[in-house]
């Protein structure tokens, strides 16, 4: 038995996990309907932006009703958002809260506790709807969850060792996260040999707070490389609406080109790389009509970027977890825009594209030059020493020296580069766009304004 298989058998021996049948699960994946694979849908819908809302409820019945609503409005990809207890591997609390939710008909969890429901039951729901499911979670140690998800028929796994740690956790050991996710990549790669590939997706929005394009792209590609080197064949890089139309369009181009380039560089050019666009992830207006406009704008930009998938928000964003009706309405709006938007003009901003590409290359050069012997250790060291620095990360390992603000055209620019190894030329370009004056506190005021740019 391989070491990986031994680990998996130990992991599913968890007291909250049902009896896990690896052989039966393999047969299921091997014979599963092509309609369940997002990787297949990407292939057969080339040039179309698939629509995926957000959502997850604690009970099976509410989840089933949510999917029913999604099927009615023609959602392309269904989300399966997991509750916060499961994300922390606290299956005992998830179990208690699930029982309460069932008994009192009120939601005591902010998502679907997949481990407690089990894969056999969940598979019935997924195969019933025969639509690709995307696992959305935020789990640092997702080893059990991912085997359960794939056994259930969820053939897209979001997350990664950086994007599920730096924005979400203060103390979870970053090095452990790399190793836990390596396990996830291997499991995903193994299942990918049986039928269409299982798709992995990175979480590009990060803290959704003034993250400069170069950091988003570097982290997206870093997670992609860690995944591809373990044998994953289908991967989605993603980013969130920046608040600047110009920067969104530039990013869309640079992330696609650079991702392909680096995949080839490590000998994984045969993998399919997809692009996912998140509608605005920052603070939403409390005025629902403004929210609708913001959602429409995001849909239009996704179309212009040529994203393979868009992940939608709803007008209820400022108020809490959206109802299935809120979600249905947002999806209808977004689909309407994407279907009527035709003949998008070819947008080129050579100067911006060149600068962003160079910044990405400069940071990767520093990462690859790290003296560690494996890619994950190089990336780990780069986070530790500030070569990768995520604005507004709560994690203790993050360097917190990088400071960004918006320029007059709403582009996110680097004001203080901290230990980012970008060249004088790149940094000068960023600075040339800014005009903040001498008073250092004007930067703080500017940041406050920039965070609330969509309010």
């Amino acid at each position, binding site marked *: 038995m391989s070491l990986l298989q031994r680990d998996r058998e130990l992991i599913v021996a968890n007291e909250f996990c049902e009896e896990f049948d690896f052989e039966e699960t393999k047969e299921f994946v091997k014979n599963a309907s092509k309609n369940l694979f997002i990787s297949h849908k990407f292939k057969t819908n080339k040039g179309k932006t698939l629509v995926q809302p957000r959502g997850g409820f604690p009970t099976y019945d509410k989840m089933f009703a949510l999917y029913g609503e999604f099927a009615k409005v023609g959602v392309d990809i269904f989300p399966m958002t997991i509750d916060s207890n499961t994300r922390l591997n606290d299956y005992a609390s998830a179990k208690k809260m699930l029982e309460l939710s069932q008994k009192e008909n009120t939601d005591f969890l902010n998502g679907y506790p997949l481990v407690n429901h089990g894969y056999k039951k969940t598979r019935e729901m997924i195969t019933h709807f025969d639509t690709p499911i995307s696992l959305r979670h935020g789990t640092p140690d997702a080893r059990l969850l991912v085997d359960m998800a794939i056994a259930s028929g969820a053939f897209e796994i979001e997350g990664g060792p950086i994007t599920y740690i730096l924005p979400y956790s*203060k103390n979870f050991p970053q090095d452990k996260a790399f190793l836990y996710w390596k396990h996830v990549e291997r499991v995903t790669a193994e299942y990918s040999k049986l039928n269409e590939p299982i798709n992995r997706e990175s979480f590009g929005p990060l*803290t959704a707070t003034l993250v400069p394009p170069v950091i988003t792209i570097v982290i997206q590609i870093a997670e992609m490389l860690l995944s591809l080197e373990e044998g994953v064949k289908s991967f989605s890089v993603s980013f969130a609406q920046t608040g600047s139309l110009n920067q969104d369009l530039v990013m869309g181009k640079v992330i696609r080109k650079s991702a392909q380039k680096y995949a080839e560089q490590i000998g994984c050019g045969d993998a399919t790389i997809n692009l996912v666009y998140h509608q605005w992830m920052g603070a939403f207006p409390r005025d629902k009509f403004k929210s609708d406009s913001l959602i429409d704008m995001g849909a239009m930009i996704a179309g212009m970027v040529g994203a393979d998938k868009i992940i939608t928000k709803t007008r209820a964003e400022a108020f809490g977890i959206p109802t299935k009706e809120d979600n249905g309405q947002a999806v209808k709006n977004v689909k309407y825009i994407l279907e009527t938007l035709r003949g998008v003009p070819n947008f080129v901003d050579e100067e911006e594209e060149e600068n962003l590409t160079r910044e990405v290359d400069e940071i990767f050069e520093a990462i690859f030059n790290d003296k560690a012997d494996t890619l994950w250790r190089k990336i780990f060291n780069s986070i530790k020493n500030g070569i990768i620095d995520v*604005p507004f990360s709560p994690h203790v390992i993050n360097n*917190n020296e990088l*400071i960004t603000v918006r320029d007059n055209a709403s582009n996110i620019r680097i004001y203080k580069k901290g230990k980012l190894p970008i060249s004088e030329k790149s940094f000068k370009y960023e600075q040339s766009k800014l005009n903040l004056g001498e008073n*250092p*506190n004007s*930067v*703080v005021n500017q*940041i406050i304004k920039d965070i609330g740019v969509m309010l």
Partner: protein
Amino acid sequence: MKIVTGVVGNDIHVVANRLIDISLQSRGFEVFNLGVNTYLEEFIDAVIETDSKVLIISSLNGEAEGWCRELHKYKNHDSLKDVIFIIGGNLSVGEGDESLIVPKFKEYGFDLVFHQVDLMDGLEQIELYVKDRFKL
């Protein structure tokens, strides 16, 4: 002048914490930022360890009172005699009445209390207060 700061309790709201850090640095202070999710004991330890004379605790999720009401228990420590204790943010769950909240936190041992005060106004007042107290 050294300042220890951070967000108290199981509160992960990081944005204001980072802004406080940047603003204090630009005002010329040496900042030891413990970040989000910090317990009162950790704040006190850091003040002693760094020999800071100012502690600024912030809270956004409204749960500060439960985490900070035992400040007196720690304040007796000799090396904390001259330390200025400050707390600010959303100091109650819901709206909260400032005229009740401020005296309550002062009773717990805080010298300055800011409830739902504009961030930059609050920091301005802190700067003036600290400079006045230490004759800077």
